[in-house]
């Protein structure tokens, strides 16, 4: 069966392309797909643990079985953003006059 695989961000840089098509044997799972990618791209192994995987645009477990025509994507951790820095730290801000 044919699986379309998408790569993003650091994962795309590592693999050197944004997508590929991989032929897997029937009954293969996401784990099998990841093993295949690690075989083709040795440095893939070091980032694998941090990746999420989606199949047909839904996050899935590694055990998820694949089907012919599936679109799998390797999803590095999303940026998360810096929500931090909420409450003002110790510095005194009280004396400042307002520019109007």
């Amino acid at each position, binding site marked *: 069966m044919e699986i379309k695989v998408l790569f993003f961000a650091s994962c795309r840089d590592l693999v050197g392309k944004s997508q590929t098509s991989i032929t897997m044997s029937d009954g293969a799972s996401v784990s099998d797909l990841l093993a295949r990618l690690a075989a083709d791209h040795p440095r893939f192994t070091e980032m694998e643990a941090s990746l999420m995987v989606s199949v047909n645009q839904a996050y899935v477990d590694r055990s998820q079985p694949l089907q012919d025509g599936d679109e799998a994507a390797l999803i590095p951790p999303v940026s998360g*953003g*810096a929500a931090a820095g909420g*409450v003002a730290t110790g510095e005194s*801000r009280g004396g400042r006059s307002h520019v109007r």
Partner: protein
Amino acid sequence: MSADLYRIQGEAIQPDALHDTVLRESDGAVATFAGVVRNQSQGRRTRYLVYDAYREMAEMKMAEIGGEVKEKWEVDRVGMLHRVGRLEIGETSVLIAISAPHRKAALEACHYAIDRLKETVPIWKKEVWTDGEEWIEGDPSASQQSKK
């Protein structure tokens, strides 16, 4: 140049009126709140609203709230505009925008600022319906009738 801004105005308030005002290059977040005239209140159909303000004091109280916000959160700039006069459905009565390096401070500060504004800033709203009008003073659900 961006700066804090606290203003009571008769002119229409555009929803992006404060974005550039509060944004500086060190900011990663701008939280904005727009209060808008809705088409009904307590189940009664609104024709339009009239806002009245004690202008000088209102601007001073808004600046005080800006000061409180800056003491409580690591925010950058604060902007607050409030409209007075007759407002139609869908028009913006109040706009608050707060910039900050990070989103949490901007969002929390914006929420705090509009709550405080509604509590302490001397601005009043008259609702005008087809069959009457009333100054909304205090808790709307317990407001005294002063229909004409």
